[in-house]
């Protein structure tokens, strides 16, 4: 009976052909390393976020009189397993960003952004950016002290740029207007909460869904990259590839299960970090908490912003890092791929990795003059990484030519 139904569908949609082409006949390199699993893990976390988010949206009220209580009373106490879904959603947000960062560093390490995969990287960057905005908007919704003051600081960045050298007049004139436009008024109130809610639950997830689909399509279209950094000729080197299903799906499936085990360890037993204590105090516009710092996934950018003495140049610096990340495929034009075969790039990758981590950890520390100096030092190292890429590429073009065009 089931077979007949599937036959009926297959005759009209050719799903069996699609399955055979995309799952079995689609070949992937055999030598893919463990970090290649992060893409699938990110996809799983995205699904977790959407499912738990749908449950939460049923009980959450986007009105400032009720927002805090609907999160902490209705969801945490009244609804059966409401606590579980809130824990999943809060931990999921952190895991999502963590996995996305790991995925990005993997991509940089194996140079997965190079020809023919530039578009994969660019769309991935847009996903990352939209994800940050989604995280920021979602952070306001519980309407606690951290939510409120975190958003106040973020929305007032445009108004604080009046120390810009030439653009002083411009920022003085429009800075505050932009800030008010983002907040929906001079104060963060129902208008802002409603906007952030709408963006967080409807528009941004839809954009993410579309972008993730395009990203996956592009990965399939360009073919998956390779840790060794050369393109495998699937026809002439059949010993180096394996069918996507079951070779790859089962491997990634097993890793995904173990990832979920770690994820649920945090959900059930360790939520102190993902539901920070300060956010269990309802938002109070008259009381600024002593430590306002963004969530860990923004701390690197935050540290760049705050360690540079001028607000304007701090703003320029952290936006420049984002833009340079976007332009990575064009900064690094070397024909050689993968850090495995590029010693100079490997060293600069380590510099970049450690500077990003150091900036994040510095962001959690008290803003002392020493820490600001350290912050500027590591910011300089991050820029050094991006600036070194064209130089390394230039050298490697020379070596590539000298070896007669062989990598």
């Amino acid at each position, binding site marked *: 009976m089931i077979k007949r139904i599937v036959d009926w569908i297959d005759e009209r949609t050719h799903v069996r052909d699609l399955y055979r082409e995309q799952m079995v006949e689609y070949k992937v390199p055999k030598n893919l390393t463990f970090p290649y699993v992060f893409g699938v893990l990110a996809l799983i976390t995205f699904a977790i976020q959407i499912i738990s988010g749908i449950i939460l949206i049923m009980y959450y009220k986007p009105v400032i009189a009720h927002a805090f209580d609907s999160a*902490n009373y209705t969801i945490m106490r009244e609804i059966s397993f409401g606590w579980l879904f809130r824990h999943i959603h809060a931990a999921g947000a952190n895991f999502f960003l963590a996995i996305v960062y790991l995925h990005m560093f993997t991509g940089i390490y194996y140079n997965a952004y190079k020809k023919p995969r530039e578009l994969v990287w660019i769309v991935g960057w847009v996903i990352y950016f939209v994800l940050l905005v989604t995280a920021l908007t979602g952070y306001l919704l519980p309407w606690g002290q951290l939510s409120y003051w975190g958003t106040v600081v973020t929305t007032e960045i445009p108004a604080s740029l009046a120390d810009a050298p030439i653009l002083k007049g411009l920022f003085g004139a429009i800075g505050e207007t932009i800030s008010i436009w983002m907040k929906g008024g001079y104060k963060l109130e129902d208008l802002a909460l409603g906007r952030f809610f709408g963006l967080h639950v409807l528009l941004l997830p839809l954009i993410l869904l579309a972008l993730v689909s395009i990203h996956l399509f592009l990965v399939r279209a360009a073919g998956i990259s390779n840790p060794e950094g050369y393109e495998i000729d699937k026809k002439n080197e059949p010993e180096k590839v394996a069918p996507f299903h*079951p*070779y790859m799906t089962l491997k990634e499936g*097993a890793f995904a299960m173990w990832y979920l085990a770690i994820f649920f*360890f945090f959900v*059930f037993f360790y939520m102190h970090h993902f539901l920070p204590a300060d956010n269990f*105090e309802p938002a109070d516009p008259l009381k600024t908490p002593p430590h306002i710092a963004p969530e860990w996934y923004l701390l690197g950018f935050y540290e760049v912003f705050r360690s540079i003495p001028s607000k304007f140049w701090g703003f320029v610096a952290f936006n420049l890092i984002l833009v340079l990340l976007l332009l990575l495929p064009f900064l690094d034009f070397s024909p050689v791929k993968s850090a495995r075969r590029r010693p100079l790039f490997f060293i600069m990758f380590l510099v970049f990795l450690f500077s990003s981590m150091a900036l994040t*950890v510095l962001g959690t520390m008290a803003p002392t003059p020493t820490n600001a100096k350290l912050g500027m030092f590591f910011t300089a190292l991050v820029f050094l990484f991006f600036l070194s890429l064209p130089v390394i590429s230039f050298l490697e073009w020379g070596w590539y030519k000298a070896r007669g065009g062989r990598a």
Partner: protein
Amino acid sequence: MSTWGLVKTVFFTAVTVIFFFIIWIHNPFAPHEEYELPDEAEKIIGDPKVAIEGRELFKQNCTSCHSLRYDGIYLMSVTAKPEWSAIEKAHGKPILEEKDGKIQVRGYFVPRDVYEAVAQADLQNLKASFGKIPPDLSTMYLARGAGYLYNFIMDPQKILPGTSMPKLFYPEYDKEAPQKVAKIVAYMRSVNEPPPGEKAKRTLMGIVTIGYFIAMGALLWIYRKRLLAKMGY
């Protein structure tokens, strides 16, 4: 895997694990305050049975200024209003508890806007006396922790100099003062933590879920090994 490959794998794994340990689990660099809790107080706060007594102490000592809406406790001056019990029933949701096998209403959870509208004059009076409206204490245990609350109630000026919160418990005159404070904190804890039975259920659920995923991962891995051997990879 070559030696160099092994070195890189171990190195990158260690760096990732250490990084996430620092930012998610224990950050020795971030500034944080520690409040000492005497052993006796810790024992009382950890005992869920004390909560009933703590609730009465809370009602007697704290409700002239503070409400605890998540457990149906409101300002004394508000609950004394003749219309309050009708408002509670009309706008609030009953908070149920099980006592001697019977389910009964412990109080009502009244939405914030309704409560603040009814208590407008009382809250403004408090603001006039203290400079700010004393906060609702529903989630204060989660926000500040047992150590802070115990030390703060024992001596508010020591923990937060300049605060308008008065000192209510004097160990010099009342030998039981430290126990009373601990019982109040124990009550605030009981409001914010699931009861012991529920907690045990959640722990069990967590262990089963984690066990399930570890086992499924292992099964998939074994299945893949066998399948690939059959296919000749």
